[in-house]
């Protein structure tokens, strides 16, 4: 190894006017926002939503969540992303400071199964003040129990912690939602991965 990695540092509390400007109503453009798949994207349109909790069980109002996922056919987007597109982007970014209940949300399509996995899932990165290194996790789907049971990554997680990775499907008047909270600490601490 010729060069050492540049250390990670916290995103801090003041990222919004740089990274999530549109969502927080700052006068700057975005390269990603909570829309992962626009209305023209193929597949079942869903919303993924949840709350980030700290070790005291309080909701975190200054986290930033990013997701990266495959399209409905299980393929990652290889095209350059432009947020003016109305199709599938694959990338989403959402801060937890604008929703009245401090939730993150992503409007997307349910991903297909990628070639080297057995169950559909969404890749997740958690950033916030108080994290010097971001943390990777995944969201799986609770209506895919048979596939989840075969997924090597999910099955490598101790059985009593697997539920922390599984989003619950809820039918709402405005469409299908999958709900999953992120617990940084405590009995229900979310499983994070060293990817």
């Amino acid at each position, binding site marked *: *190894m010729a060069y050492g990695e540049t250390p990670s540092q916290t995103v801090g509390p003041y990222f919004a006017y740089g990274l999530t400007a549109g969502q927080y109503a700052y006068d700057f453009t975005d390269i990603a926002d909570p829309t992962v798949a626009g209305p023209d994207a193929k597949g079942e349109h869903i919303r993924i939503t949840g709350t980030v909790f700290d*070790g005291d069980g309080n909701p975190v109002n200054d986290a930033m969540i990013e997701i990266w996922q495959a399209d409905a056919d299980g393929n990652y987007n290889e095209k350059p992303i432009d947020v003016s597109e109305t199709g599938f982007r694959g990338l989403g970014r959402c801060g937890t400071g604008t929703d009245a209940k401090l939730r993150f949300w992503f409007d997307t399509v349910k991903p297909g199964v990628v070639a080297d996995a057995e169950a559909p899932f969404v890749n997740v990165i958690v950033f916030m003040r108080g994290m010097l290194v971001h943390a*990777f996790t995944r969201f799986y789907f609770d209506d895919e129990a048979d596939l989840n049971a075969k997924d090597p990554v999910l099955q490598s997680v101790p059985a009593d912690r697997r539920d922390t990775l599984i989003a619950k499907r809820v039918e709402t008047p405005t469409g299908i939602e999958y709900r999953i909270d992120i617990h940084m600490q405590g009995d229900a601490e979310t499983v994070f991965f060293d990817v």
Partner: protein
Amino acid sequence: MSTFKPRDWGSHAPYIAPGYKSTLLRGPTKAPLAIKSGLTEGTGPRFAPASVRELDFDLTKNGVVNGEPLGERIVVHGRVMDTDGRPQPNILVEVWQANAAGRYVHKVDQHDAPLDPNFRGSGRCFTDDQGNYKFYTIKPGAYPWGNHFNAWRPNHIHLSLFGPGFATRLVTQMYFPGDPLLDLDPIFLGTEDAAARERLIAKFSIDRTEEGFALGYQFDIVLRGRNGTPMEN
């Protein structure tokens, strides 16, 4: 698609760094589970050229309302490479920072220092074919924060990079050489390895300095390398 070498945790801070109080309730307490990296980690977003507009790389101009922003104009050059020295072309670099007085545009920042009507403090750029990036800005000021009595953040610029894959994602901060606050800052000191910390400090460069216009700094950024044979150089 390629896979990446494991993260070198020795170059990074622990999730719980007691000197930085916010980590105590926000850092995961259980060790992250190692998983074999595959398609998911090896792929990552790329961005259309339109993601970076003409003035996005010049923070001295992209927030102008009725005049020039106040403060010391600087130009930051850097090369994004991996741990094997491979340059990383076409990488999106996002930047944000406080103004010269140490005040962020962010609505939550209540530090009693003036906003600058002509400075927003955010921008972005791409690396070129050789992995080089450049942006113009104003040297950010130090500011107080609530971590402990008389706590001040050193001058710093936030940078966010996607790199070639989702696994190489990096958010970091660039510091300035000779800043006396560095040795007192629990965020900088959160990285326990002193040699790794040095990689967070830009180098002043008279060669990068533009005569009569802007002081030059060099800040190279190293992302995780790929599995496989290192490139001969």
